[in-house]
């Protein structure tokens, strides 16, 4: 009965199987108590009509009262037990889903709106699968079997009619309901995902849309989608409730048929009444399966996505035979070539680079020359197609995921600022840093004065994606975080991007000064000023090293570096002359 995704999800239920089983039995007990209450009460009345002595009714009277109380108690414990088990499982699912995203290298390519809908909504699908499909389904099946069995003790033909009615209500109608909604349900999930993306575009892109007068178009597109979703939902409802109506019909007709058949079979009058009322109650219980089936159909897409994220949560991280020693580390690129796509021009072509402990190297070159790819390859987020990058002789790809960041790290392209306090963002770099270390790193990045000026100081919230900060402040915060982390091999990808030249020079100088002597630096920059103190400057163009040497040498030699240097120099002297 269960298909692939369900099985994958249910595998996670194993630790909580006992609780779930208990919940299922309690659910069955609840339903059976309700059924028995009405059946016993009917027996009581119809027997009483025959005016027997009172003591013949005592058991029934006590049973009616006991069943009345037990039903509520069963229900309460069942629901608590079931929800507790499922929510525990959900916690596992959430963590596992995130762990998979962590292990997945292409996580950045995902649409965040989709990811959100994935965690919040799809994971709830797991909850619904258990609480609204499996537990009530199992309970309804158990009660149906009990009801048919009890009826068979009174009259076999009546049991046959009841069984037929229950099969229609508990099997045929649920299958029908599932079939009717399946195709439409497949359409709902992508539409909702698209609507979430629309919402993100309309909020994050609000300024762009407004400035370009495109708000109306984007709104219309989103509204059209919302309208399509609404039409789809109406269609789902019209067919779905037809099945519910059929359920009402089946309940009544089965009860009527049971009365007729039981009378023909010569069943005693009292028991005919008991059978009729019991039948109504039993069909009612099995009709819950219609809702369960419908729910299950609608959960499919979500469950499949969850299962997709659960199944590949393997541990891919290879571990190095020997971890790199502490202290200084020697990094070496030998013949590194990176191609992002088959047949495309290489982003890096046969690059050699030596970065022994303590050395400071700048990589410059026009945009698209492969500077950021170089940093990405060193930090392990891009793998070389050919060639090797080694840290103390150990290939970077052989290092465990958690091992490499301890040695190589820093400020990478698109550094993300979390919706948290300044302190929390900084501590990401070094969780146990004290106030003095925070201040030192922040001062080097030129952000300390701002932090001190905030009423909340280190506890200032930076807003979603650092939205409460200016572009320059965000960049400085990311830089301070990298400096605080202080890895032995510090990679700085455009550390002064978004700062004006004067601030950029000051920040670069203080950054380099704040880096301990034994630590190596790989600085990636499109600006050439402030590079005079570095040990080597590598000029990349179209993925190849076209020039290398110290600043004085490169400036003296004709080539890209000299040209750019003169251009910038002239321009920036002009700028400085403008200052009052």
């Amino acid at each position, binding site marked *: 009965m269960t298909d692939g995704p369900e099985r994958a999800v249910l595998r996670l239920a194993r630790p909580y199987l006992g609780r779930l089983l208990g919940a299922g039995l309690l659910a069955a007990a609840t339903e059976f108590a309700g059924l028995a209450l009405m059946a016993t009460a009917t027996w009581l*009345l119809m027997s009483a009509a025959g*005016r027997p002595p009172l003591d013949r009714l005592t058991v029934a009277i006590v049973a009616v009262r006991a069943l009345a109380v037990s039903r509520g108690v069963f229900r309460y414990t069942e629901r608590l037990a079931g929800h507790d088990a499922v929510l525990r499982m959900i916690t596992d699912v959430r963590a596992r889903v995130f762990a998979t995203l962590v292990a997945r290298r292409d996580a950045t390519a995902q649409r965040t709106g989709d990811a959100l809908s994935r965690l919040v909504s799809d994971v709830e699908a797991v909850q619904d699968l258990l609480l609204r499909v499996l537990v009530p389904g199992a309970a309804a099946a158990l009660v149906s079997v009990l009801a048919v069995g009890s009826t068979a003790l009174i009259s076999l033909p009546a049991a046959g009619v009841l069984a037929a009615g229950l099969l229609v209500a508990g099997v045929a109608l649920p299958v029908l309901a599932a079939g009717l909604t399946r195709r439409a349900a497949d359409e709902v999930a992508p539409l909702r995902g698209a609507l979430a993306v629309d919402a993100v575009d309309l909020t994050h892109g609000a300024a762009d849309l407004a400035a370009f007068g495109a708000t109306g178009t*984007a709104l219309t597109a989103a509204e059209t989608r919302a309208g399509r979703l609404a039409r789809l939902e109406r269609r789902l409802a019209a067919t779905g409730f037809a099945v519910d109506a059929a359920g009402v019909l089946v309940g009544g007709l089965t009860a009527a048929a049971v009365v007729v058949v039981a009378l023909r079979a010569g069943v005693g009058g009292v028991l005919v009444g008991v059978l009729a009322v019991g039948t109504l109650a039993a069909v009612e219980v099995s009709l819950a399966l219609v809702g369960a089936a419908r729910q299950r159909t609608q959960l499919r897409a979500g469950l499949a996505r969850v299962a997709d994220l659960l199944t590949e949560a393997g541990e891919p991280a290879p571990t190095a035979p020997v971890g790199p020693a502490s202290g200084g580390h020697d990094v070496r690129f030998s013949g590194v070539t990176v191609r992002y796509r088959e047949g495309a021009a290489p982003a890096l072509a046969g690059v050699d680079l030596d970065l022994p402990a303590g050395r400071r190297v700048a990589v410059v070159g026009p945009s698209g020359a492969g500077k950021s790819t170089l940093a990405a390859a060193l930090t392990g987020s891009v793998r070389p197609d050919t060639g090797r990058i080694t840290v103390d002789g150990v290939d970077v790809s052989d290092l465990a995921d958690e091992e490499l960041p301890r040695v190589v790290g*820093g400020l990478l392209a698109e550094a993300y600022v979390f919706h948290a306090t300044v302190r929390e963002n900084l501590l990401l770099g070094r969780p146990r840093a004290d106030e003095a270390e925070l201040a030192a790193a922040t001062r080097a990045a030129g952000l300390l004065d701002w932090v001190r000026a905030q009423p909340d100081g280190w506890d200032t919230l930076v807003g979603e994606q650092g939205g409460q900060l200016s572009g320059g402040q965000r960049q400085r915060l990311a830089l301070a975080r990298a400096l605080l982390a202080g890895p032995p091999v510090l990679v700085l990808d455009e550390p002064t991007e978004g700062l004006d030249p004067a601030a950029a020079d000051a920040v670069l100088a203080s950054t380099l000064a704040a880096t301990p002597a034994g630590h190596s630096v790989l600085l990636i920059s499109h600006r050439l000023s402030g590079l005079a103190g570095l040990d080597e400057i590598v000029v990349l163009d179209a993925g190849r090293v076209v020039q290398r040497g110290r600043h004085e040498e490169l400036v003296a030699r004709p080539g890209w570096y000299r040209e750019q240097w003169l251009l910038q120099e002239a321009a920036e002297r002009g700028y400085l002359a403008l200052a009052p």
Partner: protein
Amino acid sequence: MNRRPFDPRLLRRVPAARRDLAVLAVLGGLTALLVVAQATALATLLATAIDGRLHRPALAGFGAAVAARALVSWAQGTVAARAAATVKAALRADLLRAVGRHGPTWVAGRRAGQLATLAGRGLDALDPYFTGYLPQLVLSVTVPLAVLARIVLADWSSALIIALTIPLIPVFGALLGWQAQAATERQWRRLSLLGGHFLDMVAGLPTLRAFGRARAQVDVVRRMADGHRQATMKTLRIAFLSALVLELVATLSVALVAVPVGIRLLGGGITLSTALLVLLLTPEAYLPLRAAGSRFHASMEGLTALDEALTLSATPEAAAPGTAGPAPDGRGEIRFEGVTVAYERTTALRDVTLTIRPGERIAVIGPSGAGKTTLLNLLLGFVTPTAGRVTVDGVDLAGVDLDAWRRELAWVPQRAHLFAGSLADNIRLGAPDTPDAALAGAVTDAALDEVVAALPDGLRTTLGERGHGLSSGQRQRVALARAFLRDAPLVLLDEPTARLDSASEAVVLAATRRLVAGRTALLVAHRPALLTDADRILRVEDGRVTELSRVPAGKGTP
């Protein structure tokens, strides 16, 4: 916070739902009558069956009542779902429209994650409210009344027991429901927090990885999820407790009615068909109330979302929209008159007065955070002055139709948003009908050619939600291409070359020169290359704007 089971604002905001809700009420009345009819027929049928006889008219009546109930229940579900779909579509549109209407600064204050949650899953929580709760709410009025009326006619003492116990359901429901409501609100906030937190974690995954913290965050996510579980269980313990009490009231009432009736039957004080009728009808009296109660908890989430959506989309606009006058020509003279802009925490501009003459190219320099971007935001209409005014051609921008005014300007922001869609559509943002030739021209002007060539599907390449497919520099060129297509008399550039290297800066600079030729231009610039062309240079520092005199030194250098 609204605590009523039905929010009357809904009828005002979504008038289309009124008819459906009225039909729902009529169907509720019909159901009540059919419940009584069905029970009466069944009681007669069974009372006759005790002698082994089949009462054919009662059997036919029972069948007819069942068939009619089936039909009515189908209509009820369909109409309720129609109403739900209508309301959700209308509220989604309202919410998104509010985002557009209030403008970027209003949105910046809201959390995108929260809005996405609300416009998506948040509003879908209205489904159980409409299809589950509302019809039951109607039935919980009509059915008990019809049942009581019928039982009063048959056996007043049973009716008394029912009449006395029924009110216990809403009373207990309300008492326990209040508790559950407060807890649900806490849970909803936690869910939003979890949603926002997870979005943040996923978006920042590369950074987490770079610091070797990604795996450590798995535990944080687990902790957050576990916190969610504990909060939910607390809610449920109370919510289920109310269900328990309600269930007990209903089942015990059946016992309270059935046992005395049975004993009276022994004494012959009541007929069997009446006794059976009372027994069959008694649970029906409690059923809708209990169902409504239990579904109220299930639809709380929807009600909270509804309240949030109605409140958010009804937020009054900062500026009066009624006074929108015709927009001035972008070629007019721009004047800032004593403009001060104060944000919540800081003052971005202080008493700024300046004039921009038509055709002038003005560079704006100054340290980051000094208020340069606010200057542009004023002209874009994203920000309104706290004091003073901005006029174009003598017309105060505060009173013009902003959409019309913005047609007069092209804007290159610091960090352009890339929309989910093709690269071509991203460039055509302001001019969707641009022919391919003009598009190609803009691509060339913005030095995007090589970028396009490197993409797998060229201009048709789909860009991710936040434009993950492009680097900062490439993203910037897309923004420039947008501005080229805009072809407006006033150009606002927020550090257009900040993310480009010197070589492509030269290319973009040439293009920017073509762009600003014959137009008024305001450029925020860190890069000196942009300053050499400027007619005037303004320095913004600590919210104050000073004009730098034209220095010949810049012109003297090669």
